[in-house]
């Protein structure tokens, strides 16, 4: 009888993990892509060998709500430029960032660059991602796309750099030269938002490299998230007062996405809290993947 109870308890405990249902799996040119469903969420995962990494998740009951803090943090850039007309998003994932932006700014032209065609297909099929005349995806390497866009004299009011969440870091997207190209692609009051790393010596190298291109920027960290989001402007930064008043103006429009911008300004630091003697990352010196392993 006792044994039966133990079995029953084990069975009940096992149910949540049994519920993690795999919906789709494929090997793309760059990685393994898995779509799983659990606890009312559908998630896109990359790199399944070393522990599942959730790239992006969608709440099935409330698809608008952005599940991950770092995704919500990407909208911190709006505190500097509240009404972008041209937006560039690098890295598609499940498409939650570009989709939310296109709902918030129906008139804006949004370009998304994604290197992996399979990710685009998965986002369309499993994450309700739909393109339109105002929201376009280009399958390309981001570095190539930006160089090409510069040649065509295009500019963007908001660039969101979200290409660093896998296990491998594209090193040519972390260099001073790349950041300079991104900087030059910004319009006069353009803003760059980058989801980056908060641990290892790479934090120092990367922070110093951003500083060298943009000057002072906002270092945005939330206690609930291990991510650090860099928010940099082409023409420096507005005052804390401007940022705060902008935040209170955005409260209503960002609410459906689970974002409360009022909590953001206090967590955006202008302090240089990194080792400022670290070498800059350049096209000549970019061992980002090796540096990430060092403490």
């Amino acid at each position, binding site marked *: 009888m006792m044994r039966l109870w133990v079995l029953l308890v084990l069975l009940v405990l096992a149910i949540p993990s049994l519920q993690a249902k795999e919906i789709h799996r494929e090997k793309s040119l760059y990685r393994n892509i898995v779509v799983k469903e659990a606890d009312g969420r559908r998630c896109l995962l990359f790199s399944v060998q070393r522990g599942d990494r959730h790239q992006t998740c969608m709440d099935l009951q409330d698809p608008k709500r952005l599940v991950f803090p770092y995704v919500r943090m990407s909208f911190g850039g709006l505190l500097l430029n509240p009404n972008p007309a041209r937006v560039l998003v690098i890295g598609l994932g499940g498409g939650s960032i570009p989709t939310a932006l296109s709902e918030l700014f129906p008139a804006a032209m949004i370009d998304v660059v994604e*290197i992996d065609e399979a990710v685009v297909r998965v986002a369309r099929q499993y994450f309700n991602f739909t393109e339109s005349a105002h929201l376009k995806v280009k399958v390309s390497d981001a570095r190539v796309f930006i160089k090409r866009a510069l040649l065509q004299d295009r500019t963007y009011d908001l660039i969101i750099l979200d290409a660093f969440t896998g296990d491998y870091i594209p090193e*040519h997207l972390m260099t001073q030269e790349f950041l300079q190209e991104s900087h030059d692609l910004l319009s006069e009051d353009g803003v760059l938002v980058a989801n980056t790393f908060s641990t290892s010596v790479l934090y120092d190298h990367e922070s110093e490299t951003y500083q060298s291109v943009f000057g002072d920027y906002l270092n945005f960290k939330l206690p609930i998230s291990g991510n650090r989001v860099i928010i940099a402007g082409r023409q420096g930064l507005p005052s804390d007062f401007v940022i705060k008043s902008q935040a209170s103006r955005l409260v209503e429009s960002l609410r459906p996405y689970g974002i409360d911008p009022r909590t953001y300004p206090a967590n955006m630091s202008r302090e240089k809290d990194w080792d400022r003697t670290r070498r800059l990352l350049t096209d000549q010196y970019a*061992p980002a993947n090796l*540096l990430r392993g060092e403490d």
Partner: protein
Amino acid sequence: MAIELLGGRILAPYFGSSIYVWGSIITIFMLSLSIGYLSGGRLSINNPHLGRYGVFFLAAAITLLPTIIWSNNIMDWVFVRLEDPRYGSLVASTLLFFIPTAILGMIAPYSVRLLVAHAAHAGQIAGRLYFISTLGSALGTLATSFYLVLWFEVDAILMTMSAVLAAGGVSAMLAYWSHRT
């Protein structure tokens, strides 16, 4: 092999690090090596000597210099003209790497010719040469990808390689001419 590895780094700012960029680099290295082997073997027929052997090293060192100094100009030129990054990276790696790699390819068959005294030993000597050159490639690849990129700039590594090749070439030429007089 170390140059091939750094080739990926050189091309990435213009053509990305997609799979076809590596495809272009590997294709061009294989193609230029094969042509180098063929012409090196052909050159070894007529009066082979250490002096000319040294010239190969020196020529490889010199033709590596434009790759180091003008790589950005060359890639700019290609980038503006070719929209498709597949063919862009293929053309750029041809312009950057074809000539120095082909010359490096000439060294292997020429070495066989210089070292083989009797036909009976040809196989053994060719085997040793392959052993040394492939082992060297393996160690060069390992050192470059694990450590050198962590310590030095890409151009500094390439410059050092060019200097080592030039030094080897000059000493072979000196040995030849001092021996002759």
